[in-house]
């Protein structure tokens, strides 16, 4: 059964959670829609699996996303959003926000980004207008991508729009109707499976079959963002051996040519980009720290060595150089076959005849012959 959302009243799930839930996805932040597009790349799980109810234990999901909606658009597409803003959706909903949140207090009568029009005046409604009405009523709020989580590219130094992340706008201590903090899934764009996995966890929680997803202090899923890029990188072993790429022709560690991997929270090298294919440092792309609150300003210019890199690469040098040499020696030995593999007239394998069962010279056979003499 589904509980209605009262006008500002709390959503009370029955003890077994919800049977049905709506996802209201708004990509009209300052975005490139890359997170919506990226989401469609996931096969683990796929969005159509969720929508078609192929995943056991999830509530029935009604997805509203501009890119995928079969509706032509306009008021019919907006209907559930308008109902939810009035508190009349009659169903719990998850609000997904994509894109940076602009500061609409600095542009006079103007606007930076809008979503639909005011029904009375016909003027554009700002994204902020929608967030102010939907976020307090949402059973859960999810920020998709680095723009929505921490401001991202559009919030870089010198930007004219004063934009920010959703938690900067709503407050870091915001709690949804379901008692959840904002669920941040950073990434520019989101790694497809990271997002779908997180969304699915929230949906299990909505169904009453899982606790809320474990988040860290920056509201990121702990199991996805708890390790650094370096800790999952194919090229990390080169670092340990102080073997660094000098330009992008090299398959070795890229820390000297701009990679921020050692200090960035992200699982992409481990997981790949989609279905295990692609990624960043392990396939030759420097980590530009696109999942981080400090992105992009703290990491520019991207193609130069991070300031901390000079000390760490210096300190690892003596150890790495020695260990690489020693490993080289061992490796050379490991690459040689044992000496007794030959086709000569003698057996040189160190064979002890005592262990060759019942060969003609075997003492036990001689003993047996003795015993069996009539």
């Amino acid at each position, binding site marked *: 059964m589904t509980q209605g959302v009262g006008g500002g009243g709390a959503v009370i799930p029955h003890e077994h959670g919800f049977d049905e839930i709506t996802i209201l996805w708004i990509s009209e932040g300052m975005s490139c829609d890359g997170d919506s597009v990226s989401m469609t790349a996931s096969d683990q799980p796929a969005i159509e699996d969720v*929508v078609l109810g192929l995943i056991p234990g999830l509530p029935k999901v009604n997805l509203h996303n501009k*890119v995928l909606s*079969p509706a*032509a658009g306009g008021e019919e597409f907006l209907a559930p959003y308008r109902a939810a803003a009035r508190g009349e959706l009659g169903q719990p909903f998850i609000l997904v926000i994509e894109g940076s949140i602009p500061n609409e207090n600095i542009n006079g009568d103007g606007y930076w*980004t809008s979503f639909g029009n005011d029904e009375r005046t016909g003027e554009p409604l700002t994204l902020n207008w929608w967030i102010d009405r939907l976020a307090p009523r949402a059973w859960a709020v999810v920020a998709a991508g680095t723009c929505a989580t921490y401001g991202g590219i559009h919030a870089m130094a010198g930007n004219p729009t004063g934009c920010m992340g959703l938690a900067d706008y709503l407050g870091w201590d915001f709690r949804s109707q379901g008692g959840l903090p904002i669920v941040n899934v950073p990434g520019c764009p989101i790694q497809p499976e990271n997002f779908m996995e997180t969304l699915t966890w929230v949906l299990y929680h909505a169904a009453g079959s899982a606790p809320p997803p474990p988040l860290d202090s920056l509201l990121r899923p702990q199991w996805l963002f708890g390790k650094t890029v370096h800790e999952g990188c194919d090229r990390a072993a080169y670092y340990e051996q102080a073997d660094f790429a000098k330009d992008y022709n090299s398959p070795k560690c890229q820390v000297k040519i701009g990679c921020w991997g050692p200090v960035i929270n992200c699982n992409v090298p481990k997981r790949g980009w989609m279905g295990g*294919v692609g990624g960043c440092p392990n396939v030759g792309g420097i980590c530009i720290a*696109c999942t981080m609150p400090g992105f992009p300003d703290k990491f*520019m210019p991207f193609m130069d060595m991070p300031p901390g890199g000079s000390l760490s690469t210096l300190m690892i040098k003596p150890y790495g150089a020695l260990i690489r040499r020693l490993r080289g020696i061992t490796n050379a030995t490991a690459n040689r076959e044992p000496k007794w593999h030959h086709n000569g007239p003698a057996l040189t394998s160190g064979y002890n005849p005592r262990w060759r069962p019942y060969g003609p010279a075997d003492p036990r056979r001689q003993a047996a012959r003795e015993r069996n003499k009539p």
Partner: protein
Amino acid sequence: MTATKPRPAAAKKRGELTEMAWDPITRIIGNLGVYTKIDFANREVVECHTTSSLFRGYSVFMKGKDPRDAGFITSRICGICGDNHTTCSVYAQNMAYGIKTPPLAEWIINLGEAAEYMFDHTLFQDNLVFVDFCEAMVKQTNPSVLARAEKTAAPGRDVHGYATIADIMRAYNPFEGEVYKEALKVSRITREMFCLMEGRHVHPSTVYPGGVGTMPQPTLFTDYLSRLISILDFVKKAVAMNDDIFDFWYEALPGYEEVGRRRVLLGCWGAFQNPDVVDYRYETMTHWGRAMHVTPGIVVDGKLLTTDLVDINLGIRILLGSSYYKDWVGEEEPFVNFDPLGNPVDIRHPWNQTTLPDPGKRDFDDRYSWVMSPRWFDKGSGEHLALDTGGGCFARLYVTALANMVDTPYVKSTGRSVLITLPKSERLPETTLEWKIPRWSNALERDRSRAYFIAYAAAMSLYFLERAMQRVRGGDMRVFTDFDVPDEAIGCGFHEAVRGTLSHHLVIRDRKIANYHPYPPTPWNGSPRDSYGTPGPYEDAIQNMPIFEENGPENFKGVDIMRAVRSFDPCLPCGVHMYVGGGRTLKKIHSPMFGASHG
């Protein structure tokens, strides 16, 4: 003044006008609204304006940044073809730094971009555009057409396996149809191919000025090739299904060629560099531009006006029409007075543009737009042409066919058409497809060309693979050229984003970005009226267009208008506003009902 050839209209008595609006438009990237006035008595759209409102200010916040960051930053302009921006930025930076990408890296970038075209066109065509042609939609808008489709045998049955036209339409029903679901899968396989070459989708991680970081191991090409082979059946099937549907549409609804039709005014900036020829010098750009594997050019009324990238570059003008910017002309100094060949550069050229945002209310009588109006100045006629891209694929095939310069084992232009040969695949034999220049520049032909261009990209990628593997087998593994950023330089890059023309214009001073202006396809396609009063292509295509939907004003879905708009593959993150007509506050807002929820 750009105007579609006047349609032979009998002296009609203008009926009562009904205002209808759809805002936001779904199944596109970015936010777009369409506002129309419709004469239902005469079944015609009388007036149209489309709006979009988003300003982020890339050219503002990139000033003063390290130019090497431009490829990473500009990718974030677009969430479906960001890599086209990275690639275009890299082309512009290569020119500015005076470097050339190693040949193998060029093939790798071409393979990545080919995968992007295959992915993006597939997802857009089969999961977004074709919902307008699927059984569930047509049942509600044109039941008589559906009834006819049920009885019409599909000519391409041997290729795609569907007995009737209606069977094909059912296969495209959203989230349930066979082809809809298969297309989602194919869009993932092609994105994996993309990730192999450029690291990740949609903002690449391995593409740099000077080359790529992708490791050119044999495995890389094996992984790409095996995936490519696995989708060839689908590519061939899609072309046959598209041909069947669109041929049927012309036949079932006589006059449908007028939907979304406009004068043939096409621009294509060329794609897929030829590493045997390209050196990224401006002085030789005419020559290496013509060596690209998709030919750059401009077509006016079916005739090829130029294939010279220098001409194309110098003709670009950024006009202000009705947008929230102050004019920079007379306010700001130009950055580039002469190009490296000594030709004068106009103050309205992107190199000399300064973006001065000046937000205000949306007032259709005054300013209502966050985008400027790119135009191409035709010296011959003195016109500022409102070129369109036909959704990208249409202009690419049109120019390539006419220019007759592409000649590879799998793709050949003939001067009238483009021949595309795909090898034998799991179920279907070797197939040669021919895209012929159609009579019209309209919605159906833009959509049809998309299926053909997927085949074009697939065939080209086979050729790129062969050339790349030759290099690797020959022991050439270089993919990156080192460089220094000069104190002062200019650069420009020309490329095809998935939905059409893309150029980046860069000025470096004191080793920092002094000016950076990207011009993606959607400002060309969906620009507002410019200072000369010339309307943009969307509006031009929709205005005076007939409607064929069987519903009256009460439950009108506007499907014909949606088909016209979506045929351009609108992609609005660059923020587009367009407006034509009287601009009164809408008294009546109405929009269609379809599939309010699915699941």
